[in-house]
């Protein structure tokens, strides 16, 4: 199987280039990560992040044949040759397939992604009905892989002002949590023309999310809450 992989090492290269690789012995059911690991055995300088190998840690996100995804849950059988692999778009490249994710994490921190409870907490659990808890399904499962934000044109154009789908999904996760007591501040924090409202419902985020989550819908729900809250 043939691969075309983006290479750039700032210590050695004046500019990025695409390198061709070939791999024999493709086993049935093999994922892209397994192929990359085999290529790394041939060429130790090929650099990428990886850890859990089963789509829960979010390390090995990359652009695969033009679409963002996780290498460890992308079957080779689904990929057209030569498989073109690039770093996630829109973020500075550190080396090869490794991007600098600081801006993405900064956006995440900006939405105050933690439960805020102002009343004294009980000595047991805060009660929550199964129905209230169900509202968090589709929100809390995010693995911060950045596939969505780096597929979003609004993020590419205004990464410093628009928070991007991943951070907004997190905002929604706390806005929807029946235990949280900071709704007004959370909604106020998202006001203005950019932070949330730069979302033009292009829905690239939904298409690429490896966990099947729907940030566009979450953003829509936040908008509804804003309207309701302002009445």
């Amino acid at each position, binding site marked *: 199987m043939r691969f075309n992989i983006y290479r750039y090492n700032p210590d050695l290269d004046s500019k990025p280039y695409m390198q061709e690789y070939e791999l024999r012995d493709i086993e049935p059911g093999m994922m892209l990560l397994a192929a990359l690991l085999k290529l790394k055995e041939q060429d*130790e300088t090929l*650099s990428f992040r990886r850890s859990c190998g*089963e789509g829960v*840690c979010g390390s090995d996100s990359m652009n695969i044949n033009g679409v963002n995804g996780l290498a460890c849950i992308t079957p080779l059988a689904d990929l057209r040759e030569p498989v073109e692999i690039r770093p996630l778009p829109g973020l500075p490249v550190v*080396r090869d397939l490794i991007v600098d994710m600081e801006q993405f994490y900064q956006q995440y921190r900006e939405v105050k992604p933690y*439960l805020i409870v102002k009343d004294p907490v009980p000595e047991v*659990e805060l009660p929550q009905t199964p129905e209230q*808890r169900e509202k*968090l399904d589709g929100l809390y499962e995010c693995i*911060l892989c950045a596939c969505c934000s780096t597929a979003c044109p609004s993020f590419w154009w205004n990464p410093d002002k628009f928070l991007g789908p991943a951070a907004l999904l997190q905002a929604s996760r706390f806005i929807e949590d029946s235990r949280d007591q900071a709704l007004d501040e959370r909604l106020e924090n998202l006001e203005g023309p950019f932070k949330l409202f730069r979302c033009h419902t292009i829905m690239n985020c939904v298409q690429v999310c490896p966990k099947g989550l729907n940030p566009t819908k979450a953003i829509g729900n936040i908008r509804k809450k804003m309207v309701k809250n302002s009445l």
Partner: protein
Amino acid sequence: MAAIQRRKFDTLIIGAGGGGLRAALKLSDADASVAVVSKVFPTRSHTVAAQGGMNAALANVLPDNWHWHMFDTIKGSDYLGDQDAIEYMCRAAPKAVYELEHFGVPFSRLDNGKIYQRPFGGQSQNFGGDQAARTCAAADRTGHAILHSLYQQNIRARTHFFDEYFSVDLLKNDEGHVLGALIFNIHDGQPIIIEAKTTLLATGGAGQLYRTTTNAMINTGDGLGMALRAGVPLQDMEFFQFHPTGIAGRGMLITEGARGEGGYLVNGDGERLMERYAPKAKDLASRDVVSRAIATEIREGRGCGPNKDYVMLKLDHLGEAVIQKRLPGIRQTCMTFLGIDPAEAAIPVFPTAHYTMGGIPTNRNGQVVMPVKDTPEEVIEGLYAAGECACVSVHGANRLGGNSLLDILVFGRAAANHIIDYLKENRYHRSMDEASVNKAMARFQRWDKKAEDGGESVSALRDELKAVMEQHCGVFRNDEVLKEGVQKIEQLAERLKEATIGDHSDTFNTARVEALELENLMACGLATMHSACARRESRGAHSRIDYPERDDKNWMRHSLYSFESGLDYKPVRTKPVSVDSFPPKPRVY
């Protein structure tokens, strides 16, 4: 070379999984200055992969009591667990869960609004009676929910993170005080000395020792390697848990919660195989018991598939609604990796390397202890360990499912509490020991050696190590196989000294990281194989075909392996804090 950058903190925490982050949060909220150093961004840590849940006797579903939890944990440990630490953990469990809930963990809920709890293996009511339901769960993504919530709370507490920095070695002075660590920034390859009054190792286990493993690629026993090189022995390393239900041939974990929800194992003849091995608890017997049962079925020719080399885990009778609600994560994993929907078809499973019961010996404050002269448990000033890298020991010879998330949270917190007190009495940094810095730098720079010198590659040696561990230190062991394993692994360790890498760049050099990781893994392999070879009995996860019985007279003691003095032993702490001791009994499920 320019002078190495130096940073000073009250506490250095190495590792940003659940144990490290729980400790960091406690310390940050107590206004200690904390540096958390992690080789990956915190939410990539392996806690994220924990599925089924966390044990605590909340009695939300069935009657329960911390004392019953304590009994189950001691029995599960095959009486090798330390009963004071186990009592402490089981008593602290409900509070640990409620704290997490207040931090925002989205636990699944019961109709009355309380936290959902499911049955797990080895749990009983009333000291060995009916099945209990003690495992608090967020669907089958409990680890993810906990890790993310803890990281989020640390953002609130403004903990100082060193993300994607690799810890090379502990720094220590001649009196044996630990002074911090030498780390380097993976992004630019620059070393930094972190000076700290207290250092907490929370680096997780060494599941990458085995070829087929449920563990992430980052689980390379880094803290265990650092401890051994600092002269600290590793305890009970022969006890390595094989999880009964990894996906056959691939290793992805299928949570014990699948059996807790009503799933069961069948062999090639279509029989419910666990009825033969654990008539009462059946599929919810302890993990060592279930793993041995599966391995025995296969050895005796009753496996499934064309090569009869796995058994099936059946869930389809539970119905799609239950599977989607309670086990959505493993459903996704099965569909991705097997093209099988467990709501329709059974899952092929095989015992898979999962958990390092052994580790860095600590007391129940998380302080690292080692034998000095006649004292078996002398405290090493300034050094702490918590979680899978530590050995308190609450898991003994076999860990119960649902007790590892509990372990990291209870002892991460306990270590932080002790550190807070220690800092009050130790207000100043001790002066740095430059010899120790030079030694750590030598280890770091050793990989600058060029491949032209003809060294073997790191990946080839790593593959050999995993093969040796699999063939010589698996579910069943015997003297001949282990002795050969010791020889092979000693040779591999020698060869690793001459290995070289083909990348000498400073920018995000993953080849160098993998080389340093393999050194740690090799150290863990040596400790595991040597300890296993020496222990001539069967206890918990350590099954010797040549010594099939537990031998309490000679072997109810902890192994200690160090580079300096090989194997040593110390007694099990059989005296709990406040209740009567549970004396060893035959272990029947």
